[in-house]
């Protein structure tokens, strides 16, 4: 089937989409947006987190057809041209990126948190990121990055 979806503000079209395919597969394999990562395909790791109509979701658990005529924003859509989003900058500066596999999902999820809660407490940060797994950093620097981004916004 054909899927029409707005991605990062641009009207996009994907063809020959299998009806059981995930939005994550469409983004990565058909629309050339490999920012969102595929690690578990079962909602456990959060590395595929994207905005769907302004709500962060696991793209691996959205059927591609459900995104028809909806708006998706991926990690690729956070920077403005060459200017990184403050959350992305903070991740770099705080050393919150090691292998980087979890980073896109964490960045989108943290971005949403700071939009809703400009000055989150530590428990609020932990709760917001509870669905994002990182095997490298031990999370401390991730928390530092979110605190840093909050202080700058």
């Amino acid at each position, binding site marked *: 089937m054909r899927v029409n979806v707005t991605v990062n503000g641009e009207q996009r079209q994907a063809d020959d989409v299998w009806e059981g395919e995930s939005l994550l597969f469409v983004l990565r394999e058909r629309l050339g947006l490999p920012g969102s990562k595929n690690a578990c395909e079962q*909602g456990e790791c959060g590395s595929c987190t994207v905005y769907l109509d302004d709500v962060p979701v696991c793209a*691996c*658990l*959205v059927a591609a057809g459900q995104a028809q005529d909806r708006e998706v924003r991926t990690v690729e859509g956070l920077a403005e041209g060459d200017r990184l989003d403050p959350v992305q900058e903070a991740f770099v500066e705080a050393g919150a990126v090691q292998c980087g596999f979890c980073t896109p999902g964490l960045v989108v999820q943290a971005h949403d948190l700071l939009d809703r809660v400009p000055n989150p407490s530590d428990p609020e940060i932990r709760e917001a990121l509870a669905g994002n797994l990182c095997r490298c950093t031990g999370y401390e620097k991730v928390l530092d990055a979110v605190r840093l981004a909050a202080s700058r916004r």
Partner: protein
Amino acid sequence: MDFLRPETLAEALELKASRPDALPIAGGTDVMVELNFDHRRPSALLDLTRVPELQRWEEGLRIGAGVPYARIIDELGARLPGLAMASRTVGSPQIRNRGTVGGNLGAASPAGDTHPVLLASDAVIEVASVRGTRMIPAAEFYLGVKRNALEQDELIVAVHLTPARGPQQFSKVGTRNAMVIAVCSFAISLFPRENRVGAAVGSAAPTPRRAPEAERFLASALDFRDPKPLPDSVKREFGELVSRAASPIDDVRGSAAYRKHALAVMARRTLGWAWQELLDGERACA
């Protein structure tokens, strides 16, 4: 595979009647895992996320099957504290943004977190087909492991719940605070004006189920008109009766013996919290 995309409830019911083989998909948090791992190959998916009737709630309360957990917590948390507590324990923020009570009921897993709350709070499930509407009390909805009372042509439309008339609590045992399938779970609702108690267990029998003996014992042991601090003996007996209502199995998440023990502990504790809330309320009024 076909992808069916109804825009109204009437259209969704027509499609379900003509294609009983079509698998409904709401938040997709159960369905997509099965598709991604090749555990299921339905001949069609019936996308319910565009059906407006399912995405809203009305006073009463009638909660559309497609309202995600995040909205139940934000919009109904004050009126449905038990359901909100259970919703907060589901998966992660991303899962709660997408997953729905309708999907929990559709999957009918014995471990589904909303089930004990729906049972303890006398929820009624509204299901519909082109043949008409049926109102099914939660206690009659769960038929077996991952089996519910839906006919092939029916969809879950809404859950009916009255705003809490007394304290409600929910408790769940798992290995961490997020992303955990319940080892076992428990919900309690007090109905002070009716002198009644609702209590139900999850993940501790082939289906979620009520604990009627525990409910009866507690209703007679509690003095709702003149609440006093509860003797430990009442809490302990209640815990025992709740535990006895379960028929758990040994599995990877826990042994049957552990589940029985944990249920008694959760029942005692949640009763303590609920009763304290009632006492505090009395004091505030006095």
